[in-house]
């Protein structure tokens, strides 16, 4: 790769990164064709069916923790193990769930998304 041969010119009317960096220019028709292709649609839906519900799930889980801590103090104060009560365990559980979701997403992306994405990218940049 080069040092920005033409420098940055991502402005007025020209989309950013459209004119530099990539090894090849891709025409609007090619982007449309790829967008409509079955392979791209599968990639898109494979990404969305993982990312969207997962986002909803962690938001619900986090807001539940916040709302229960705020409005169900008694429940969250229920002792569970030693000095650890339900609320503290749910709080620590937020850390655990964040790490688990991160791991699950990376696994999904590495296995199901990256190979398709790089194949499509190579096709687009190669054929122009």
């Amino acid at each position, binding site marked *: *790769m*080069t*040092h*920005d041969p033409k*420098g*940055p*010119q*991502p*402005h*007025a*009317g*020209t*989309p*950013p*990164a*459209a004119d*530099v*960096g*990539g090894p090849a220019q*891709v025409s*609007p028709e090619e*982007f*449309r064709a*790829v*967008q409509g292709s079955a392979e*791209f649609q599968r*990639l*898109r839906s494979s*990404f969305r069916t993982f990312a969207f519900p*997962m*986002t909803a799930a*962690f938001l619900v889980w*986090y807001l539940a923790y*916040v709302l229960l*801590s*705020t*409005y169900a*103090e008694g429940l969250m*104060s229920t002792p569970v193990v*030693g*000095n*650890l*009560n339900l*609320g503290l365990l749910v*709080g620590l559980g*937020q*850390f655990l769930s*964040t*790490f688990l*979701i*991160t791991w699950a*997403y*990376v696994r999904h*992306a590495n296995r199901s998304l*990256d190979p398709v*994405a*790089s194949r*499509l*990218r190579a096709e687009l*940049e190669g054929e122009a």
Partner: protein
Amino acid sequence: MDVGNPWVNIGIFLVFVVVTLVIVVRVSRTTTSVGDFYHGGRSFSGRQNGVAIAGDYLSAASFLGIVGAVALYGYDGLLYSVGFLVAWLVALLLVAEPLRNTGKYTMADVLSFRMRQRPVRTAAATSTLAITFFYLLAQMAGAGALVSLLLGVDSTAGQSAVIAVVGALMIVYVMIGGMKGTTWVQIIKAVLLITAVGVMTVWIMASNGFNLSALLGRAVDSHPDGAAILEPMLQYGTSGTTKIGFVSLAIALVFGAAGLPHVLMRFYTVPSAKEARKSVVWAIALIGFFYLCTLVLGYAATYLVGVDTIRDAPGGSNAAAPALAYELGGTLLLGIVAAVAFATILAVVAGLTITASASFAHDVYNGVLKEGKATPENEVKVARRTAVVIGAISIVGGILAAEQNVAFLVSLAFAIAASANLPSILFSLYWKRFNTRGSTWSIYGGLVSALVLIAFSPVVSGSETAMIPGADFAWFPLTNPAIVSVPLGFLLGWLGSVTSKEHDEAKQAEMEVRSMTGAGAERAAGH
């Protein structure tokens, strides 16, 4: 509170400054092309960038503030810290990779991709500058407070001098080192901060036989409120209003992190979307570990330092972490922790400055004023000059705000990021129908509503702890506007879009394909 030996604190901090300056000067020799100033040649690995993100994100407020909050209020400190971490899942799942694939230097690159350039760039730059300004002001004023706590400098002149030195250093880092230099400052700071916090945590856990329950028990025994520190709402449960206020803050945190411009800009420093993903993974691991440590440190400060001692210290709850370091490791460990706290402020302000100057030079000067026709050399010249101006403004602002209660500015910055930036980012990446009007309505609507609500809230007037305690023009009861302004940002984005016919189908196709595949995205500059 004993401040240890101020000269030891200053000495260790000076070592940090000298080491980082040497590195900044060295890397500046490889900053050759124009883009290098903004993204450091896109040559950082995902791991390096992840460490730098942690360095950018973990401000002195989260280090000193959260340890202090746990020490005084227990559970509520943990509750507060969790929001800062889970927010990263938004960045991981929805933002980091498509942003890296479709943008170049700034957040506005992505937002204006398929829109009319000038209105959207202007809007995005406005919210970027607002967020960085408030965040900077909080950091600089915090530097003044830290000085009185750690160096025993109580005079206004002394504090002002230190704020000026911090500002001058940050200008030097950004001017000489650009993004590459700034990144290295953040990496070094993150390693120091997380190592220091990690060592103290292991030390404390070892003294409790690695039994968290035993640690909690000792904290309960020495806290005047006893077992209440293990239960929620010691801090936020004063009234119904403070409870909703906390829910609002939680919304600001969870939606705000992935909309912070200085965090977003970091995703451009890596060569690919896959590395951007790795960055977030490292950031989540480090930030998660860090907040788990602050929980242990906070409860340890409760019984090792004592609640009364912390409350009476010059910095209030901010004194908990330094005081704990002194209890554990005496003058030397206090010196290290104090120096790390300063380094933290320095690294965060440098990151904010480069973001604001990039946004001004790239979006306002070139994108709007010159309609994209400025030469790259001129653009970077403007960026460097902007850095000096921003540095000067934040020095003056920091000195003026040093006596004020400005801690709310950080949560305000999160609230603006959540209500002005995130709706627009998500809509423009995932909603076909989104257009220029939706984008500008959402950004300005989120920004203005957050600012107006905070101006008429108890943090500005009408309470004893307000910024202007003498006046009372508050009618909005909550201390954080997000519970209103975030839904409003999303709503206006939708409303603006459906009331405008504009729709660029070709650009939408291009953006969607690029964001998913990375086609046409810049790789690393050739090293």
